[in-house]
């Protein structure tokens, strides 16, 4: 879906992107990073709105050479609160559909459909500038969807939403990705949002990619790390584990956190220590752990 090679961008003395390299496949991908990491800049470059050094391909198209062809196939939901002033909600969506190159009749028909889809069906004929923040977020999503793009680029789509609105927005996005086979690039600094919708992530920090890959892979933790719950002498068990070459990282949850080559080593140590293993599970890391490790680790340079 996206191929990015050595992408760099400066605004005066500020380095916004510093040699970004990544491949983003089909499906929903989260673009994670703290504020100022370069997420919005990256989206704008991919839309062909900003010039930059390096190479990029969006669905096989070069955004620097064919920006309009790229934008015709992308639905973009900007971060800021924005609307077309003085138009009814449905007219604003149809208008943006026409600007995307849709015939007038199709644009209006489709605008009505997507307004229902995002839950603004009853509010179609209200002035868009009178919409609440939550409704404006939905309107922006409707405008991004109106020309039925293959790829949706969403910049902080849950900004300003209350918990219920946020849940609904995330449900919509997940449905789009799973049921309607839309490819999503969701930029956010909210980890639960990304976990809720996406299957893979790209993590940015100070204009560089620090981690990327499927969420399940990133959170699977280090191979051979287990949380062991045992009945018996915990100190002796720890000593036996160490004697068998395992590392004991101290208490993890209500048991021991053990790094061992295999589970048989743990059972052998328990037998030697006269302890009974009551619980054994591989440790998974949360996306938050992965993210914090990635953004807090010192930079290589």
């Amino acid at each position, binding site marked *: 879906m996206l191929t990015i090679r050595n992408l760099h961008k400066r605004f005066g003395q500020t380095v916004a992107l510093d040699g970004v390299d990544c491949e983003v496949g089909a499906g929903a991908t989260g673009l994670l990073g703290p504020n100022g990491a370069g997420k919005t800049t990256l989206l704008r470059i991919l839309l062909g709105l900003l010039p930059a050094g390096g190479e990029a391909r969006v669905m096989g198209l070069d955004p620097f050479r064919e920006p*309009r062809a790229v934008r015709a196939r992308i639905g973009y939901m900007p971060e800021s609160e924005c609307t077309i002033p003085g138009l009814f909600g449905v007219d604003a969506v149809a208008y943006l559909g026409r600007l995307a190159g849709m015939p007038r009749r199709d644009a209006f028909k489709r605008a009505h459909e997507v307004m229902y889809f995002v839950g603004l069906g009853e509010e179609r004929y209200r002035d868009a500038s009178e919409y609440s923040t939550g409704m404006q977020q939905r309107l922006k999503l409707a405008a991004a969807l109106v020309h039925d793009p293959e790829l949706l680029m969403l910049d902080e789509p849950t900004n300003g939403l209350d918990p219920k609105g946020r849940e609904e927005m995330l449900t919509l996005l997940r449905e789009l990705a799973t049921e309607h086979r839309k490819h999503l690039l969701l930029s956010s600094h909210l980890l639960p949002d990304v976990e809720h919708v996406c299957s893979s992530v790209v993590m940015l920090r100070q204009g560089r990619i620090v981690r990327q890959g499927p969420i399940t892979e990133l959170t699977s933790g280090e191979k051979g790390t287990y949380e062991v719950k045992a009945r018996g002498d915990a100190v002796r068990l720890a000593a036996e584990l160490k004697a068998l070459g395992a590392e004991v990282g101290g208490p993890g949850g209500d048991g021991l956190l053990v790094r061992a080559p295999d589970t048989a080593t743990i059972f052998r140590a328990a037998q030697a220590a006269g302890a009974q293993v009551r619980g054994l599970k591989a440790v998974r890391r949360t996306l938050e752990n992965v993210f914090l490790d990635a953004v807090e680790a010192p930079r290589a340079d």
Partner: protein
Amino acid sequence: MPIDIASYRRWEGRARATPLAAYAIAATMVRRRMRIRLVRWIVSVFSLMATGSAAATFLFTLEGEGDPMIQHQIRLFGIDNIDLLAVLNHRLEGTLGWFGILLAALVGAPLIAEDRRAKALPLYFSRPLGHVEYVLGKAASAAFFLALLLVVPRASMYLVEVAFSDAEGIALRQLPTLLRTLATGGLGIAVLASVALGVSSLTERPTYAALTFLGISVVAFGTAHHLADALRDPNLLVLEPYACVRRIALDLLPVPAPLRPGTEDLAAMDVGRAWTGFGIWTGLGLLVLVLRVRRVEVVT
């Protein structure tokens, strides 16, 4: 209202960049403006007044009860020897200019400012839309309203002349004059729309944009006429955008002397300078507009 996930349908068409986007912008902007009652009212009154006065002046002139200056010209040159359409166009020019400035402030100056205030530019430019189409679309919507004032009355004078004149072949004979009068209207539209939109791109407040445009028009008028009088140099009238258009109109549609009182300076102005002034004002407006739109779009 709850979301309706099952309602999503695929669209079988294919979106692609189209130059018709400028037309879509213009048509939507015109419709949006016409939803505002005040705009509807002012546009209707202005265009009816302009068209009505053009037609009435023409009819009264034919009846011999019209403007004394025109009667004087008819006595001097005879009705068959003067181009009445050109004379009446000359007489309307100043009035239409001020109406045009007011209308450009009302419907043209807010066009970009309100998009900036609503942060709409990222929505526009995330579509396959270029800056040229955006600017053209906005300019065309301003031009539509200005045309109601600066073109329709002129065309109506021609229609009245054709309808009421007994002269044979009058429609064909007056066609070149009609085209010239429409061209002068077009020049007025170009300079007013570009300056109004240029000013509009400088602020996020539509009211400030309108007041600034009016201020520029009044100050330019006052400065140009004061300096032209004080320094006895009619070429200084180039400082006023619409004076350039009026001088070009006088060149395209020459009228026999005497001219309308107060236009002697205008007639003495060099027509080449007038074209230069027109080009500078229009170009400056467009340059500011394009540069600001590009900058705002990148920064927003």
